[in-house]
């Protein structure tokens, strides 16, 4: 047996992980190799020292302090979630109001012709009202989903869906005033 192999077996022996054959082979090598038997005594005493070290006690109030930290962290997490939902709602609102806002801008442009002003104004009000209804419904759904969402993965899913909806809406809303003209 080579000394390197013997050294590896010594470490395994300290863990009680040797087979009977390996035990015998190691003993046979230790009997004839002075360097390895010195190493063996050495390794044993180092490991006795490991075993002799006792467990330390955690500081008093450790668990209580952990729970304070857990509470702070989960408060911060729910704040982040709330912030995210506000951001989502703002995003949806801004895209949904693009069409009526466009219409309002066109009112100021065509302020000279009165019938056009009235019809555009009515159109804008109807637009805002219908949009507001949709937004309120969507808001309710989004907030409910966000508050009860169990994981960040689900949350990310909502975020993706909302982004898609917002972008689609923005495109539709931006196109409409152009077709009016």
């Amino acid at each position, binding site marked *: 047996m080579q000394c390197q192999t013997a*050294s*590896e077996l*010594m*470490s*395994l022996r*300290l*863990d009680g*992980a040797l087979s009977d054959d390996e035990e015998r082979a190691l003993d046979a090598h230790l009997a004839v190799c002075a*360097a390895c038997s*010195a*190493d063996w*005594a*050495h*390794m044993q*005493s*180092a*490991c*006795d*020292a*490991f*075993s*002799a*070290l006792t*467990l*330390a*006690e*955690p*500081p008093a109030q*450790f*668990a209580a*302090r*952990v*729970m304070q*930290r*857990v*509470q702070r*962290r*989960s408060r911060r*997490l729910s704040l982040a979630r709330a912030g995210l939902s506000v951001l989502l709602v703002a995003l949806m609102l801004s895209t949904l109001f693009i069409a009526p806002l466009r219409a309002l801008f066109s009112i100021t442009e065509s302020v000279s012709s009165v019938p056009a002003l009235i019809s555009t104004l009515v159109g804008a009000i109807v637009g805002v009202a219908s949009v507001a209804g949709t937004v309120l419904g969507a808001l309710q759904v989004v907030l409910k989903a966000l508050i009860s969402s*169990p*994981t960040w993965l689900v949350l990310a899913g909502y975020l993706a869906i909302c982004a898609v909806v917002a972008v689609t809406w923005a495109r539709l809303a931006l196109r409409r005033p152009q077709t009016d003209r």
Partner: protein
Amino acid sequence: MTISTEQEQLWVLQARQGNQEAFARIVEAYQRPVFNLAYRMLGSVEAAEDAAQETFVRAYVRLDSYDPAYKLASWILSIASHHCIDCLRKSNGRQVSLEQIDGARWIPDPRLRPEERTMRAEQRHEVREQLQRLPEQYRLVVILRYWHDMSYVEIARVTGSTESAVKSRLHRARLMMADLLTEAEQAASVPEGERRLTESAVSNRV
């Protein structure tokens, strides 16, 4: 520390639903092993307490990713291990890759091998100090083996490595530790008369 697996899984279930009382039970059950792991890894009580607290906070946040097929203790200690290694790397600033460490052969110094020696009780505090000089991954396997009484398989799972890597790290850690302790012993307390004797013994061997 004997907690039934059923009790443990119940706590996990309740904590996942936001029951912080249930999570507090988990913290109480595992504060000792987690604190000890951090203490042995980081070497100071303050750093250990902070790391141990952070470990539990992370466990709470990631509770959904816990697989009940494994022991809860292993999962928490695995979070603790990774966090401690991160802390050490941040504070050391040095990056020694594991391949570098595992690949290099530790060559025992024959001059550090007196014919016969035994570990004295007063040397125990040296063990604690010398443990801090081992590369962090070696220290980790020693800690898990000796203070957490883990098998090779469990250590491999906790450290995210293989069983054979664990065996070889333990082997090298033991060789290093044997040398470091002898070195410390010789440097610390050898009376003049004995020192000459030791030196002549050393020169005889070389």
